[in-house]
């Protein structure tokens, strides 16, 4: 049985869901790490909050994705122990990750613009 990679509350079909996740999940994570390191739970929370609950990552999909990005050397995880807190693994963007973020952001913008053009034509 296939379990959703992440849930998009308003998406209509699983196929579209899957295709969209491929293009968007990596971009979302890289974007959230652009200015400061964050731990996995914080990343999941921020995605859910900023999408106003529309996008929610499953724990079983968020972390494998983080590990994959780390393996590609786009992000780097490191255990950090702050005083009075338990240690947590914080992920930060690497320079390769920054380049990839810029590339994906550009690609995503083109994609959205294209979709807009199509949907605008339909309404024209």
């Amino acid at each position: 049985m296939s379990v959703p990679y992440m849930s998009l509350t308003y998406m209509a079909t699983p196929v579209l869901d899957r295709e969209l996740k491929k293009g968007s999940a990596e971009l979302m994570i890289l974007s959230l790490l652009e200015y400061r390191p964050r731990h996995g739970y914080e990343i999941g929370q921020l995605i859910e909050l900023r999408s106003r609950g529309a996008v929610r990552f499953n724990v079983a999909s968020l972390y494998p994705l983080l590990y994959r990005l780390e393996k590609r050397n786009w992000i780097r995880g490191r255990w950090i122990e702050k005083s009075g807190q338990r240690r947590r693994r914080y992920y930060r963007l690497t320079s390769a990750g920054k380049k990839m973020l810029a590339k994906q952001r550009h690609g995503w913008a083109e994609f959205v613009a294209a979709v807009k053009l199509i949907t605008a034509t339909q309404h024209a």
Partner: protein
Amino acid sequence: MPDFKAEIRARLAELRLPPVREAEIVEEFSQHLTDQLRRRSTGGASEEEARQAIFQDLNASELLNRELKRVERRAPANAVIPGREGKLFADLGQDLRFGLRTLIKNPGFTIVAVIALALGIGANSAIFSVVNAILLRPLPYKSPDQLVVLWENATHLGFPKDTPSPANFLDWRKQSTVFEGMAAFAERSFNLTGVGEPERLDGRRVSANLFDVLGVKPIIGRTFVAQEDQPGTKVVLLNESLWKRRFGGDPAVIGRAVNLNGEPYTVVGVLPPTVRLPTSGNWRDQVWVPLAFPSEEAASRGAHYLEVIARMKPAVTLPKAQAEMDTIAARLAQQYPATNTRIGAVVKPLHEEIVGKMKSPLLILLGAVAFVLLIACANVANLLLARAAVRQKEIALRLALGANRMRLTKQLLVESVLLSLVGGVVGLGLAYFGLNVLTRFIPHDVAQADTITIDAKVLLFTLAVAVITGLIFGLVPASQASHFNLNETLKEGGRDSGAGARGKRLRNSLVIAEVAISFILLVGAGLLINSFVHLRNLDPGFRADHLLALNVDLSEVKYPDTQRRTTFFAEVARRVQTLPGVRSVAVAGNLPLTINGDS
């Protein structure tokens, strides 16, 4: 709070991730789920609802495993350090190299451990060298197991092993059937003159067949023949050292006449240095002449001064030889009641006669140094345990890299055996120098004492001791080091784990064992010193201080009868008495306490 770690670990099991990676993922996931639970609870959900929601997420284990499988690598089936699986010697080479690097990186630890081991192993090697030479090395004769020593049994007179008289020896030889040959010898000293400085030589009168019985071959020339065992025959055998020292090792010495006790003796052969006759007297014979009993001496049953060796026939056992000698002695007791009543015969293995009295003290000494080695083992094991506490992080990392615990234990054992082998090499050096000192304390007349050396057997013994020692002191720390909680150890605060507590208990036990063994040694040494002090304080019945002794042998040619000898010694005593500082002078056949039963 649900045990998320156990749940996650169970779900990850089939992935067989490297332990440290698994520990990281488990920790990260469990933190995430704990945070989720807290958030859901504060959001108004009951704990049960929150828990169910979280486990629903977590139960996406198929997704979890599938996704992780894409990213994560499996742990290798074996091997701490890269190496071909199943190749013992390839692993061994790696372990040795790694062990060597570890030892070099910790010079302080290595030096202390090597010194402790070197002292323990060196002491064992040195004492074993002595045991090897005296107890284990076969006597330098042909088939030494067949050689026996024959004594008269005069227990009723206080001499259970008395030196036989010439007539009894000759009867034994004539009547016995169990021996291939029987020979006798008696001490005799000689004055060598005519070749440079006169010199007093230790020697023996021997039966002509003695060297055939022993199976000794001469270096040059020949041994005695039966015809030479007659009074008036003046032939002599030299030992190798005398031949080299006084005759320059010249082979032409054969047939040459040398002057002994004022009489010319013809040299017929030179014997190897290994020829040492078993006797209670001096071992360093330099010359041998035929026994050649005059008829009066051959008939004597009252003078007991011979030592007799015989070689048993191949099929003959000691009890059989003893039984026959009992029969012969009983027969002689009937024939010569005046001298032989209640005089029996005793047959003893030659080896036992030569080394028997040294066996117990040497084995006790070997036991004592074994205890010293055990103390060294306990010391080094303690050091290793202390170091294992420091090395927990390193060991955890290696486990995390894929080592299984057996493999790690093996690696740690190789490291300790390597340490022990280095200790063994240094110990051999100590043993070599120690033997030079040790041999000075071994009595002069102990058989084969001058053959004590570090030979192949000692090297093998040292190697075995080093390996066993390494295993002994390495096994406990190695097994202890690989039994700790990997996750806890990898955390910053994970040092004081259960293994640490076990380590402390082990270290305490080792210290207790060390103190106990030391106490045994201390008591033993104390008793030994006490006995020595008692011996020193024993009253021999005379004042031994300010006494000097001098051995004098008179030429039988110049002093053939008792009258002339008595006159000579009386004159010596008179003249010595007049020397300044001399209070009194005495002449004796033997010095007090030097010959059993004769003082």
